[in-house]
Structure formats: structure tokens, C-alpha cells
């Protein structure tokens, strides 16, 4: 064992400083790691907090609107939804005319935007030369980028006079003798009114319907389309029998998303709707929508009941759009899951 001791000594001599330096290093490492652990946890919590904040935001919107609309609902009860009267002087308020206008203008918009949007989506996915796809797609999407107020000013000064001079007299004279249509297109051509608002909304939601239809059309597996072409289908037959059935949920989702936009659109409609609180059978007559009423009257509203009624309108609008948009997202989610499978 005598020869062993110097070896042991030398080993321990080497080992001791090593242990020393390594404990120092370990300590430093532990410290750094601990620092990392803290900042790591903090960052994670921070991002999680921000994510939760989005939910808080939604909750805040709902709670504050409900709170603000309580006086109106207490006063008018459920009749608020159906009453057409909106009279700030006698303080009698009802949402009937505004809800009617919102629904009618949005329906006009969808009736026009959906066929055109689907047509463009078909063109972009099936017919368009590859080099033109991006430019045309971008040009359509830029329509969505134009601020709402620009549509409003354009609608009021350019589009409405055009409709008043050329389109509306023509509609009145053509449909004047057709039973149902004669009431839809009766009255004087004012230019502004529900039809004009609906048409402008159609232009505004067109890019949304187009973009989503195009995206969902692109999820169709090429194999499916090619096999249809392979047995001799024409492009139209491929679209009708393969593309549309495959993407039906997605298209419905896109349409609902557009509808959600149309329902809540404010400034453009405010310019051209005419702001009349009445329900008219004629589409040419001026009307109002929920958002236009709020935009027009909120700053001038005197008295708690008036303000509260306007907030109640806002609550109704938010609930309607929320349901429509939630439905749209669920549809799109279903298509996504199908595509992932």
C-alpha cells in the first residue's frame, strides 16, 4: 500500500481543486439555471395572462353592455325587440325598425355577394392562369382593406345618385306590375335607402366570401378532382359534384362570416341608409340599422333612457353577430378537421 499513497495523494491533489472549481461552476450554473427557471416561468405566465385577457375582454364587453342596457329593458321589457316606435321626445324606444333594417340589408348583401364571391372563387381556383391568380386575389382582398367610411362617402356621392337616376326608376317600371315585387320596389327613387345600403354591403363582404371560398376550394384533394375529370366531367360538373359537396361546410362558414361582417358594418351604412325609424315593405325606402342608429344618435342622446336604449341596441347587435360568427367558425373548424384527416 506504500506505493499506493502517493498515487492517492496525487489523485486527491488533482481531485480537490477540480471539486473546488466544479462546485463553483455548479453554483454559478445553478444560479443561472434558477434565473432561467424564474424568467421562464414569468414569461410563460405573462403569455398565458395575455391569452386569458382576450377572454376577459369579451366578458367585459358583454357585462358592460348588459349593465348599460338594464334601464331600457326594465322600462320596455321584451316589447323592446318588436316595437317599431323610436321617439326621443316622448322617450319611447323600440328596436323593431333597426333590427328589421339590419336583417334586410344584410340579406340583400348576401344574396348578391355569395353568388359573385363563389363565381370569383371558382375562377381563381379552376380557370385563372397561375400567373394571374395572385394579382387578382390581392385586388379582391384590397377591397376588404378600404376603410368603411370610404365606402360611405363613395356610396353617398357617387353610387346613390347613380342608382337614383338609372337603376331605381328602371326597377320601379319593370316590377310595377309584378305582384310581390311591386311592393318591394314601390315608392319614389330616393337614391339612399335599404337597397343602396344592401348593395354597398355586398361590395364590402365580397372579399370575405371570396377569400374563404377560394381557400376552402383549395382544400379539395387534387386526386378527387382529377378522377372526376378523368371520367370525362366538365369543369362545371366537377365543381357541382365534387368541389361544392366536399367543401359545403366551409362555404357555409365563409358565408356566415361575411354575414357577420354585414350585420355589424356601421359607417358605410350610416351614410346611405337614410336613418328613418320605420319598417317599410319597399326596399327603396329609407330605413335604419342597429349600427347606423347608434352611430348617428349616441353623442346626441340626452337622458339615461335614450343612452340605455342605444346600448341595448348594441347588445342585441353583439349577440346576433356573436352567434353568426361562432356558427361560422364551427363550420370552418369542421372542414379543417376533415382536411387534416
Amino acid at each position, binding site marked *: 500500500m506504500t506505493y499506493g499513497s502517493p498515487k492517492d495523494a496525487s489523485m486527491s491533489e488533482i481531485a480537490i481543486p477540480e471539486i473546488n472549481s466544479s462546485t463553483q461552476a455548479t453554483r454559478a450554473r445553478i444560479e443561472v439555471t434558477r434565473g*432561467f427557471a424564474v*424568467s*421562464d416561468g414569468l*414569461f*410563460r405566465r405573462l*403569455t*398565458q395572462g*395575455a*391569452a*386569458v385577457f*382576450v*377572454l376577459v*375582454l369579451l366578458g367585459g*364587453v358583454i357585462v*358592460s*353592455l348588459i349593465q348599460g342596457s338594464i334601464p331600457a329593458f326594465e322600462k320596455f321589457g321584451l316589447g323592446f325587440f318588436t316595437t317599431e316606435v323610436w321617439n326621443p321626445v316622448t322617450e319611447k324606444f323600440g328596436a323593431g325598425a333597426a333590427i328589421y333594417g339590419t336583417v334586410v340589408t344584410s340579406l340583400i348583401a348576401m344574396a348578391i355577394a355569395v*353568388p*359573385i*364571391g363563389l*363565381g370569383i372563387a371558382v*375562377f381563381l381556383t379552376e*380557370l385563372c392562369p397561375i400567373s394571374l391568380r395572385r394579382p*387578382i386575389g*390581392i*385586388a*379582391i*382582398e*384590397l*377591397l376588404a*382593406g*378600404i*376603410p*368603411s*367610411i*370610404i*365606402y360611405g*362617402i*363613395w356610396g353617398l*356621392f357617387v353610387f346613390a345618385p347613380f342608382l337614383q337616376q338609372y337603376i331605381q326608376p328602371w326597377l320601379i317600371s319593370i316590377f310595377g306590375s309584378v305582384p310581390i315585387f311591386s311592393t318591394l320596389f314601390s315608392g319614389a327613387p330616393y337614391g339612399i335607402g335599404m337597397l343602396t345600403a344592401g348593395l354597398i354591403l355586398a*361590395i364590402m363582404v365580397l372579399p370575405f366570401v*371570396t377569400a374563404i371560398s377560394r381557400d376552402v376550394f383549395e382544400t379539395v384533394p387534387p386526386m378527387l378532382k382529377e378522377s372526376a375529370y378523368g371520367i370525362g366531367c366538365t369543369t*362545371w360538373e366537377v*365543381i357541382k359534384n365534387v368541389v361544392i359537396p366536399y367543401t359545403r361546410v366551409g362555404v357555409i362558414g365563409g358565408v356566415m*362570416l361575411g354575414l*357577420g361582417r354585414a350585420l*355589424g358594418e*356601421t359607417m358605410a351604412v350610416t351614410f346611405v341608409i337614410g336613418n328613418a325609424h320605420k319598417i317599410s315593405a319597399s326596399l327603396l325606402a329609407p330605413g335604419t340599422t342597429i*349600427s347606423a342608429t347608434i*352611430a348617428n344618435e*349616441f353623442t346626441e342622446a340626452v337622458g339615461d333612457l335614450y343612452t340605455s336604449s*342605444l*346600448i341595448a341596441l*348594441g347588445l342585441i*347587435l*353583439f349577440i346576433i*353577430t*356573436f352567434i353568426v*360568427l*361562432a356558427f361560422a*367558425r364551427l363550420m370552418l373548424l369542421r372542414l379543417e378537421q376533415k382536411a387534416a384527416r
Partner: protein
Amino acid sequence: MSFYPARRRRNALWMSLSVVSTLVGLCWLFLILAVLFWEGFDGLSLAVFTEMTPPPGSAGGLLNAIVGSLIMTVIGVAVGAPLGLLAGTYLAEYGRHEKLALVVRFINDILLSAPSIVVGLFIYQVVVAPMGHFSGIAGALALAVLVVPVVLRTTEDMLNLVPNTLREAGAALGMPRSLVIRRIGYRAARAGLVTGVLLAVARVSGETAPLLFTALNNQFWSTNLNGEMSSLPAVIFQFALSPYKEWQQLAWTGALIITLAVLAMSVTARALTARAIKR
């Protein structure tokens, strides 16, 4: 086989309808831009950028409105963008498969298309009513609420494009998760993150509805965030509906300025995303 010509004809009919609808869709963009240039270009002069909004019947500019818009947009983005960025980070990095992320993603997509006027009402209820008066800061907060969903969505999408191998390489070097996200994820997705902010700026700079009863409007020069503040869209709204020729001209000019700015931002954002995806 006698079907064949009929099928061909039907196909030709539907396909030409599709082409027609594309032309119809495209014509609006050009019609609107043409009118904006036609009506707004004449009014475009140095005075627009150097003078205040005039009283009815006299000449002036849009300086206070432009400055007001800039201030509120900058604050709105400064408040909303970090929130959106962090929340988007959570959805893409930490909570990819968690319930919370699913719910937040769903709600965020709804907020993305929710009517902006409702946001105005919300801010009116929680900021303006307690304060007792309209203010620039309320307007900025309303815009911030609109910024969050846009930035959140783009951030998540862009971080999802970052290849996982990059993250794994970082983790293999011993980097903690938060550093991997900040030093690798954010850097790799930088162009995309900028896009998100740009899109948000483009979205809010044209917004009128949420400003109407939060920041209201102001005829005069004001940088006081606690007071009523002018903004370009609100001035356009007021001037366009007025009977005065000078005001209407200014409204058109303002409309042209806003549209060009917004479209420029959207195009830049698109170019950036295209590059990010190509890489």
C-alpha cells in the same frame, strides 16, 4: 353521346358567369379608387398637411385631424400589439394543444370580426362614462381593443410557420423555453410579426365607428389625451355630411389620404408575408 354538346354548353355558360363575376368584383376597386383620385386629388396641397380644420365656409387643412389620428393609432397599437403578441405566443408555443388555447383562439376569431361600434360602446361604458367626458385616451383604448385580435392571429400563424427543428436545436443547446421563443422563434418569424402590426395599423387607422363616442372630435389643435381629440375618419364623417363645399372637398382629400395610406400598408404587409412563407 347526344348529351355532350348540351353539357359543353352548360359548362361554357357557368364558366363565363364565373369570369363575369370576377370582372364585376374587380371593377369596384377601380371605380372607388378612380372616384377618390378624381374628387380628392384637386384638394391635395401643402395646406392640407399644415393648416387646421377650418370653420364652415373657409379654406383650411387637416393637420389636427391627421395628428390626432396618428397619436391615437400609435397609442392604440402600443397598448394592443404587445398584448396580442404575448397571447399569440401562448397559443403557438405553450398552449398548442391546451383547452385554454382552443377557447382563446375561437373567441379571438370572433372578436376579429365583431362590429367595431360595439367596441366603442364598451369603451364608452368603462372609460368615458366613469371619467365623465370624451377623451383621446378613450379613443386610443378603443383602437387597442381592435388591435389585439389582429396581432394575436398573425403572431400565432407566423410562429406556427417556424420549423420545429429550429426550436429543437435551441433546446439541445440548453436554452430554456422562453429564450428559444424570444431569440429563435421571434427572430425567425420577424417579418411575419411586423406584418401583424402593419395589418393592425391598417385596420384601425380607417376606423371611425369606435371613435365617434370615445374621442369624439375636435375642431382645434389638441394633443391633450385627456380631452376630446380629432381624427381623420371622424372629420371625414362630419365634413362629408355637411352642406359646405370646402368641407366636402376636405373630406374627399382626407378620404384619399387614408385610403392610400391603408392600401400601402396592406400591400407591404402582403409582400412581407409572401416573403416569410417562401422562406
